[in-house]
């Protein structure tokens, strides 16, 4: 009898929690299908057009944790993210990471102007003019960042990386990946 009396209250609390969690999710954050999958095969020209800018080979051969950031000069959120990438780039040596960029559907000249003006956080940049490599990565829009270990995609960050997220999320995740497999 007592359970029956509280049943409506329990249902209400259940619904309340479900809706509170459900409605506060960010609909942009689409569950990633590429986690724990290999980096798609690609080879992209450099910004200056002199040979390969970035390829899946380069990423797979890297001993460090690789961050691949999709950006474009026409993308407003990338501009917001940019200073934080610069910060991350300065910390990369100390943290054993390497930051690569892929310019997404952007004229190389415009990407170059963007990087010359605001600084270049990337060790290498590949030009994905048609956006096909991005689709193979499962990119939904710029900016988007992938964290890759041994050529396997481990994390996909949709949207800009904000300053606080570097310390709270990105660096701890990198630490965790580096600790993996170590006794």
């Amino acid at each position, binding site marked *: 009898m007592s359970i029956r009396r509280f049943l409506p209250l329990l249902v209400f609390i259940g619904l309340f929690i479900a809706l509170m969690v459900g409605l506060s999710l960010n609909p942009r954050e*689409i569950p*990633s299908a*590429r986690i724990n999958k290999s980096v798609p095969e690609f080879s992209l020209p450099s910004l200056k057009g002199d040979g390969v800018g970035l390829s899946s080979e380069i990423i797979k051969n890297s001993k460090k944790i690789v961050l691949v950031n999709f950006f474009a000069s026409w993308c407003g959120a990338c501009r917001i993210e940019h200073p934080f990438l610069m910060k991350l780039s300065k910390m990369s040596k100390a943290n054993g990471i390497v930051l690569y960029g892929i310019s997404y559907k952007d004229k190389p000249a415009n990407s170059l102007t963007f990087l010359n003006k605001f600084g270049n956080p990337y060790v290498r940049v590949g030009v994905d003019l*048609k*956006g096909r490599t991005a*689709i193979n990565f499962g990119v*939904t*829009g710029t900016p988007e960042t992938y964290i890759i270990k041994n050529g396997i995609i481990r994390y996909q960050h949709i949207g800009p990386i904000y300053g606080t997220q570097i310390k709270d999320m990105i660096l701890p995740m990198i630490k965790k990946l580096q600790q993996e497999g170590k006794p």
Partner: protein
Amino acid sequence: MRLFVVIIYLMALTLSANAIGVDKARLADPAQEARAYNIMTQLRCLVCQNESIAESDASLAQDLRAIVRQQVKAGKTDAEIIHFMTSRYGDWILLKPPLKPTTIVLWFGPLALLLIGGFMVFRYIRQNPETDMEDPLTADEKKRLKKILGGKMPKNKDHLGDYMS
């Protein structure tokens, strides 16, 4: 009247045309284009989220449409093209989610709620019939009722039911 029919017919024609009106590059073979269009309507636009890529003008949707057309032209089956998309974007890209262990609640949740609700209503009605008298009159109340009625009990006891028993 004939003119009216022709106008209606022409208007109906534009319905299918404006959906992918932004694309210049269509497939030459109308049967292939129709097949490609059918696939596009099943794929969710990742930018607009509540539109299919057939309806969306987002640049990513345009790219995905181009890929669908390219693969249809290359002779890929519908299932192969859908798999190409889900391997990159997950089941999320499908407007109609597939039936798997993780989507059972999504598919059958509403039916389960309907059944539970129906069962509760059924039980409530069975337990509380309108004619059910839960507390018959006490001996004291019966005496008072007799007094009010002037000592005369109705001949037909039926409509007083349990009160007088």
